Every structure is written in structure tokens, then in C-alpha cells.
């Protein structure tokens, strides 16, 4: 069905629209937003991902290749909530590109479109790497992806008005498929509700919120602080009193702390793709959640 509707929409657009101008250059701060921009933009956009799934988007540098991409970008698609604060400001200041400055249609922050979780009530760096706007890892809940898609489709149309109808049509198609997929994932993951889990980094509140997973411990003593052996022993003791089913980490996290604990607590350590490209299976947004749900189900058995 989708193939047809997309084909028909494209045919109509081709017939009606003026000759297509050069594709919109999009610099996506994280691969999930790159994938979403690609879904909504199709061949009307050129997407470049600033980071890959094996990089912690908080800890990369404003390297020359990114400056060059920022210079040529028509639009930035980022998470926001200070996830990119260590490097994005440099790109904005040095790119000499007014199109992507905050407030312009070419500047898009995904976190503005979702309800933020873990918004700190007190701000103190003694609490570790906390984000004043709330936990920025919003992409682990597919309902957030849907909300961001709505916002991104609108903003794509603002940044590239000549193709507004195209983005709207693709958004409609994507949104329908996404809704179906979310329903399917929710059905498949019903057994995960209430399952107690341990996380390596506080990167999964949105996933937990979506699937009803119950976080009982964190391997990092404070957000962004590497797990210490002393803290791991504490968590192990806690797990003996209060067992959990699995230990979650993102593809870019070092596997050793969770493997260490998993072996001793006799539970499974699960590396979730976390974003597009984080596993062999996670090739796009759909397969990202297919794979995430499958890995969780396999570990919960």
C-alpha cells in the first residue's frame, strides 16, 4: 500500500511541482534524526550525520569535517536539551551560516517537541552530568519519534517551502506506518511490563516509560561518571536482595562493567542499538525498534 501511495504522491508532485531545486542539506547531530529527516525528506534532502551510533554525542568535538558540513547545511536537526553543548555552539559560531542559527527554520531541536523526563529539581554539577532541560535521550520511545516527526515535517516545510507538499505527503505516509509499527511493538513487548532492569548509564528513561520497564539500579554512580568497582559491588549486593532481569547499555558504552556484573548476578547484559546503526539489524528507525524490542524480549525470557 505504502509503495503505491508513495508512488502516486510522487507522481502527482512530479507532475504539479516546478522542477525540483537542489536538495536540502541537512546536518543531523545524531543518526536517529538523520534517519527521520531521510524518512520525511526522501530524495529532496541530503542527510549527513555528525555522529554515529558508537559515539557518545555528548563527547565529540567540533572537528573540521563538521565545520565544513555546518557551513553548507540548510538545516540542523539535533536533540537539544544541551546534549550537543560541548561542540554544537562552536559549529554555530564558526560556520558563517545564518540559516542554521537558533530561531531560524534551519535550526531544529527535537527535545522541544516531547515531554522531558528527569528534569532536575536542583542544578549542581556535584550531581554528575545532568541536563537542565531533562534527560536528552528521548529517541528510545517511538511515541517521541512520532511527536518529533510532526515538528520536523512542519519545519522542513518552513526551511524548504517549495517542497512543503512533498514533506507533508511523506509525513502522512510515515506517520501511518509508524503508528502501525508502534502498535505492533507495544503488543510484542507486553511481557516486558514491570520487568526490573539495571542500566549502565541513565540513558533509557523514555524506553522504560514506554514499555513499563522498572529501573532498579544504575551502574554509573552519577550520570556520566564511570562505574567504579566499589559501586559495582554495591549494585551486585542490591541485586541479590532485589533481582533484576537484565542490564541495559547503549552501543557506545564500554561493555565491561555490565558484562562483569551480568556474570556475577547471573542475568543478561544487553547492548541496545540506542540509535540507527547501533547494531547490524538497526538499519533505519523501524528496524531500530524491531531490534530493540527483540533484544529486550530475548533477555527477559
Amino acid at each position: 500500500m505504502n509503495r503505491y501511495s508513495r508512488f502516486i504522491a510522487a507522481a502527482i508532485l512530479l507532475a504539479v511541482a516546478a522542477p525540483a531545486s537542489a536538495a536540502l542539506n541537512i546536518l543531523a547531530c545524531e543518526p536517529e534524526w538523520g534517519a527521520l529527516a531521510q524518512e520525511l525528506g526522501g530524495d529532496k534532502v541530503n542527510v549527513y550525520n555528525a555522529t554515529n551510533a558508537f559515539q557518545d554525542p555528548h563527547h565529540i568535538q567540533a572537528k573540521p569535517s563538521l565545520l565544513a558540513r555546518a557551513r553548507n547545511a540548510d538545516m540542523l536537526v539535533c536533540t537539544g536539551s544541551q546534549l550537543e553543548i560541548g561542540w554544537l555552539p562552536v559549529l554555530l559560531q564558526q560556520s558563517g551560516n545564518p540559516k542554521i542559527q537558533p530561531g531560524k527554520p534551519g535550526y531544529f531541536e527535537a527535545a522541544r517537541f516531547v515531554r522531558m523526563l528527569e528534569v532536575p529539581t536542583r542544578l549542581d554539577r556535584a550531581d554528575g552530568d545532568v541536563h537542565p532541560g531533562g534527560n536528552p535521550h528521548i529517541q528510545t520511545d517511538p511515541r517521541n519519534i512520532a511527536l518529533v516527526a510532526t515538528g520536523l515535517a512542519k519545519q522542513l516545510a518552513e526551511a524548504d517551502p517549495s517542497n512543503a507538499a512533498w514533506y507533508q505527503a511523506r509525513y502522512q505516509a510515515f506517520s501511518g506506518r509508524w503508528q502501525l509499527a508502534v502498535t505492533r511493538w507495544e503488543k510484542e513487548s507486553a511481557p516486558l511490563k514491570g520487568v526490573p532492569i539495571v542500566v549502565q548509564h541513565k540513558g533509557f528513561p523514555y524506553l522504560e516509560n514506554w514499555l513499563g520497564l522498572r529501573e532498579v539500579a544504575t551502574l554509573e554512580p552519577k550520570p556520566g561518571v564511570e562505574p567504579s568497582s566499589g559501586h559495582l559491588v554495591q549494585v551486585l549486593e542490591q541485586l541479590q536482595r532485589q533481582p533484576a532481569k537484565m542490564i541495559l547499555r547503549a552501543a557506545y558504552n564500554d561493555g565491561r562493567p555490565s558484562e562483569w556484573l551480568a556474570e556475577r548476578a547471573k542475568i543478561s547484559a544487553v547492548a541496545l542499538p540506542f540509535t540507527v546503526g547501533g547494531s547490524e539489524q538497526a538499519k533505519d528507525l523501524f528496524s531500530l525498534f524491531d531490534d530493540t524490542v527483540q533484544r529486550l524480549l530475548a533477555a527477559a525470557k
Partner: protein
Amino acid sequence: MYKRKIIASGIIMMLGAPLSAVAGESAEMQQIRQEINALKQSYEARIQALELRLQKTEAASSAAESHAAQAEAAASQAAAAPPAPAPADNINAFNPGVSLILSGLYSNHSRDPAGHAITGFHLPPAVMADLQPQRGFSLAESELGIYASVDQLFYGGLNFAIHPDNTVSTEEAFIQTTALNHGLTLKAGRFFSGIGYLNEQHAHVWDFVDAPLAYQAFLGGQMNNDGLQLRWLAPTDTYFELGAEVGRGANYPGTGRDKNGSGASALFAHLGGDVGDSNSWRAGLSLLTTAPQDRQWDDTNLGGAGVTNSFSGNSKLWIADAVWKWAPNGNAYYTNFKLQGEYLRRVEDGSLVYDLNGVAVPGSYAATQSGWYLQGIYQFAPYWRAGLRTERLDPGSVDYGVNDGVLSRPAYRPVRHSLMLDYNPSEFSRIRLQFAQDKATQGATDNQIFLQYQMSLGAHGAHKY
């Protein structure tokens, strides 16, 4: 939307049937039916959910209406976009980002730093005093930075350096454009010149306690300038940047002059990119031109008597710099390596007046001198980095013209090797231990131990590459 979808799929079913191949038809139809069923199911589920919510709302009707709405918003979680957060409604809401760098240093030198000099490289006494090491505990440079967007066109910032002797200097105070198109950025005010690689970085992001000898000898440590800077970033996928500066040039290697026009100008070009996911690099070439007037330094003539030299003329400093960074898959968090080197070459010519006991003797002056450093920094575990730096200066050729027979021209090559280890418990704190063998002064080897902390408070400063 769903209704429209179902209608659309119905139409497509009608249209699609004749279009599709006969063999694939039944499978396709089946798939469409399945999708319609799934749509129906999701529809029903949603209606049920809505009914449930309606019941809940009715049950809770005794509660205040606003309260119920709040509860529903919470229950539906991510189902609806949040209201935009209200901006802080106070007078400080537009205050700029403030960042404070605190730094302290313990230095142990095997030699008395009193006679410290870089043999063969002539620095004005005031510059030399700034570079003079201090033994024991000291407050290293603290920095206070204040930065914000000015409006839709400009960004601005100020950076104070607070020195251990209770003096404060303005390291940077600039405005820059954010709205010029075509990759252009114009900066005005006082700023670190874009020449070289280290020069533009604040001292607290350097990988060693001190500036390389070549930076000390040719730039007095670090060069800032009052003036204008224009940068242009090329519209290519490979990073290519050109920059030009004009400015007062009051600082070494220039001298303060009261005159119209520019006292120091600079040109620089940068090229950079990635090699795979794991490597990135940048290389640059810069030229700094100044016209010092009566730049004075103390020296000893061949007879062993103290003289004061005064140079006026042209000074051209060339810098070639390169940096290569490696991190597995580009994830620098656990382990990474950085190789960095710069080569500086200065050509000066003009006139030199030397003063011996109040008698001024004029002559010509031409000198070509150079120096380089190479350093590697390896992060071998989260939080821990080790680094090695080696550097050397070449006195090159110095020609005093008619005074060649009077003034000394040592052939000594200053050398220094440094080894550092630092611990970075977070991106905001660093504790560093550094050992160095410093042979900057001829005939005097200074073995140095430094212990330093650098902490960053306040606004999260983004660092340049």
C-alpha cells in the same frame, strides 16, 4: 487520518489490482487486508482507550477540572506535545553565560629561575618577566569568561585573566557576526590571533602546563591583538578556511605605536577533514607580519658588558601547524590519541641600535630563526591521559652588520622535553603532573616538576577542535 488512509487504501486496491502482476496479486491483496485489519484493531484499541479515559474522567469529576486535565496529561505521557516552557520571568533571564576557570600550580625547579633566558632569542624584559617560572606554590592563571549572543546579528564575549600577582588582564573582548552569509565571520575587538594551532586556544585547554618554547620565543607565549579578523569557510565538504587580521600589534613581536593604520597583520589558511570514522586532522599555514619600533632587550656584548639593543624594522613569522586525532570509531571517551606539531620561522630585518653605557651605536639587523615542537597525548583509560612533548629552537643566522664583531651570536640550540600525566574526573576538572628537562638557557639544565589543577565552573564552554 486513519479514515483517510482506509479510503486511500481502498482506492489503491481498486487501482492497484490491474496494475500489479497477476502472480503477486493475491499476496498483495492479503497484505493489504492484513494492514486494514491492523488499522481496524489499532482503531478499536484507541477507541477503547478513549472510552476508558472518559470513564476515568467521569469518575474523577469531583476533582477540580484543572486537576483532571493535569492528570490526563500525565497519563497520556508522550501522547501530546508539551506546552512550551515559560521563560524565566526575572530580570536576570538574559544574563550571559559565565564561566570561571580556576587553576593552581606547584612548581619545583632544580635551578634558580632568576637567570632564566632562552639563549639566542631576544625577548623584551617585560615579556621575559611574564615567562619567568616561579618556584613553589602559586595561583596559576584564573580566567573569567562571559559570553552571549548580542542580538540577531552579533555574538560577544569577554575573557579576563587573573594573574597570581593580583593583576588582571583582558585576554579577549570581542564581538563577532553570526548572520553574515557565505561562510564569512567578522570579529572585532581583542582576540587571540588565528595563527598557528595553539595560539587560538585558551591556556587552560593546552595539554601542558606551559607554552612551547617556540611560542615563548616568537610570540611571548601567546599572541592577542586588538583589531579585526575576517574568516571565510569554503563551501566544500573538505574543511578549508582562510582568515585575515589587521590590528594594533602592541604586543611582542610588535610594539605599541601611536599611528594610523595597522601595526600587525596576519593571514592564515586551514585545511582539514576525516579519514574514516576514527581519524580527523587539521593542517594550517599562517603568516604574522609586524613592524616593531624600538623593540628593546638586554644582552651582553662579546666583552661581557651589559648592553641594551633596540630593533626597528619588519618582522615576519611563518607558522606551519598540524594536528591528527585518532579515536576508535570516533568515540574518544574511552581512549584516543592526538599528535600535534608546529614549526615557526621568523625573518626580521631592519636597524638595530645598541646602547653601551649611554653611547648609542647604530647598525643593521637581519635574523632568520626557527623552532618547533611535537607532542603526542594518549588517553589510555577514561579520565587518564599521558603526554610527551619534545621541542627545539634553532638560532639560525643573525647578522648585526657592522656590529657583528661586538655583539654575541651564540650557536646554542635550546631544547626541552616534557612528560605529563593528567587525571580528568569529569569534563570540568583536571589534575596534572608534569616533568620537564629544560635546556633553554645555555649551560643550565633545569629539571622541573609541576603539579597543577584546572577546574571549570559555570557555563559549559564548548571547545574548539
